[in-house]
């Protein structure tokens, strides 16, 4: 009896080995010519299934994704995986850092014809350019502000994060820059260069009894909101539209009197990208009005950097209503931080998180 089972086991093991060796050759074939690897947040435009399918039909290029859960992780992934990614979505505020570390290469705008209708102030944004050379295609802009459960009185200030009425009902973003920006705006400071960091720290610490969750991704935000883990949270403008429309969640997006925390996301091509040609084509696709309108109306999106794309959006569309054109000139926009300030921000946020965890 044991003899037989032993022999069977050997057979089984060798069969597995052979099967394994056979299958290991498959992925190599699947990833042959015409692939680009995109590094982005999960569920943020580039990975819409219908768009990837249409893009592949139009160009023959297959789009695969890798995701990050914070902008710091995005940079580290670029640093430790040279020659892996073809296109990366990066916040303008992080772009300067990526340029300084030689992580992204100049864009060949001739291969991105749609750039012609991109707003000039975005295209020449100092964070996307170095020595007159552009390093990223401006893609979308939006704002981080407050999202609330439908039916609750609409908050008019970031002070709502400390409002005793929402004890244990608040979700903040686990991001040093975003959290500090909200506290800086609340205390009347420049969010990119708050003079009184101690005040920022104390303000954030003051939210402690309200903070239920530090979220890092949209997916996590949706799941927690659906499970009624919080009622009020920092959130992205485009995310709020998607949560409402795609996930059918009762979310209201509110911009407080201190103003939203603005950001611009660009598309960069990492140094050593194996398929820079395909990456340029996909970047062009991403700022095409056709893609944008479909993305914004089917799912929900921040505002396109492409003026033509914004204009082709129906006037009553939620994405358009949330992103009022005047914001782009009136709100504060996240900009590049010098190394020492970035480190100070990171240490401050680490300390606040440790305080929340106590």
């Amino acid at each position, binding site marked *: 009896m044991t003899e037989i089972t*032993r022999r069977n*086991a050997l057979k089984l093991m060798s069969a597995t080995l052979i099967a394994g060796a056979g299958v290991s050759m498959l992925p190599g074939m699947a990833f042959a010519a015409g692939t680009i690897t995109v590094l982005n947040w999960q569920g943020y435009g580039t990975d819409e299934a219908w768009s990837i399918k249409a893009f592949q039909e139009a160009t023959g290029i297959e789009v*695969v994704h*890798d995701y990050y859960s914070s902008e710091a992780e995005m940079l580290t992934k670029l640093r430790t*995986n040279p020659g*892996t990614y073809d296109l990366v979505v990066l916040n303008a505020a992080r772009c300067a850092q990526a340029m300084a570390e030689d992580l992204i290469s100049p864009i060949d705008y001739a291969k991105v014809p749609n750039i012609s209708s991109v707003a000039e102030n975005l295209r020449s944004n100092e964070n996307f350019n170095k020595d007159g050379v552009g390093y990223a295609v401006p893609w979308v802009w939006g704002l981080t502000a407050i999202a609330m459960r439908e039916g609750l009185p609409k908050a008019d200030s970031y002070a709502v994060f400390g409002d005793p009425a929402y004890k244990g009902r608040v979700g903040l973003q686990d991001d040093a820059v975003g959290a500090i920006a909200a506290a800086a705006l609340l205390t009347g400071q420049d969010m990119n260069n708050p003079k009184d960091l101690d005040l920022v720290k104390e303000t954030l610490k003051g939210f402690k009894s309200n903070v239920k969750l530090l979220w890092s991704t949209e997916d996590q935000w949706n799941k927690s909101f659906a499970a009624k883990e919080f009622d009020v949270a920092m959130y992205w403008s485009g995310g709020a539209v998607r949560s409402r429309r795609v996930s059918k969640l009762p979310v209201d997006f509110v911009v407080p009197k201190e103003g939203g925390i603005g950001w611009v996301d660009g598309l960069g091509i990492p140094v050593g990208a194996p398929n820079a040609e395909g990456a340029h084509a996909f970047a062009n696709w991403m700022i095409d009005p056709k893609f944008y309108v479909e993305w914004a109306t089917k799912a929900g999106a921040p505002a396109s950097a492409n003026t033509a794309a914004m204009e082709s959006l129906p006037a009553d569309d939620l994405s358009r209503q949330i992103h009022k054109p005047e914001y782009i000139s009136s709100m504060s926009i996240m900009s590049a931080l010098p190394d020492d300030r970035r480190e100070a921000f990171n240490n401050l946020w680490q300390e606040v998180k440790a305080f929340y965890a106590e």
Partner: protein
Amino acid sequence: MTQLGRIYLLAILIFLYTPILVMMAMGFNESQLYELPFSFSTRWYVALMDNQQLLKAGMNSIIIAVITAVISTCLGTMASIALSRRTFRGKSLLQLLLLPPIAIPWLITGTAMLVFFYWSGIGRGMHALLIGHVALAIPYVVLVVGTGFSTIRADLEEAAMSLGSTPIHAFFAVTLPLLFPSILGAALFAFAVSLDQFVISYFLATPGYSTLPVQIYSAIRKGFTPEINAISTLLLLGSMAAILIFARFAKPGDVRDKR
């Protein structure tokens, strides 16, 4: 007393299995956001069949585990022969050197491997994962095979030789068959260690080459659907099956217990 003991064991079993069963059940729930009430659906299993990234990672896990089992069993058995059947100076030091892969938190071993492989140009990816997994599995193999050795009397081999058998013949005719269950047990053990390994894989995987646990972790952090439940269910059932096969070979309370 006996009754109380059995009720207690039942409670422990409920504690151990409840989350696993809930996780499996949620793989059959319609809602993408894991909302209740439960409504039965196999859509996530259907979606899984199209998820190349997860399927490929699952295949990678199995391939890595099989190769790890083969290499670590060969190497570990050889070392075990020397450690069990020979006397030499520095033996206890060598035995002590088997401990780091087990005793140092994997977080530290894993990050150290990342630093060294990066700095030395070995890089990351499949070969790096194999180097790491084999190193983790070897100590277990040496222990399991060593336990097997301790149950075989050395004088059997000598008796065979005194009856005219050559040492090679004695080893293959007497020792190896007796040792075989332990070696097979060690191989399955190594397979399970590798299949379950997450921490080291996490630091050594690349965007293009990762294993299932790494994919599951990054999905949990970056966004997931109940497809994760579906593949986890398959993974759990797979490794449970492997262990049940193992348990049939070496009776419980045999090889593993003497570790």
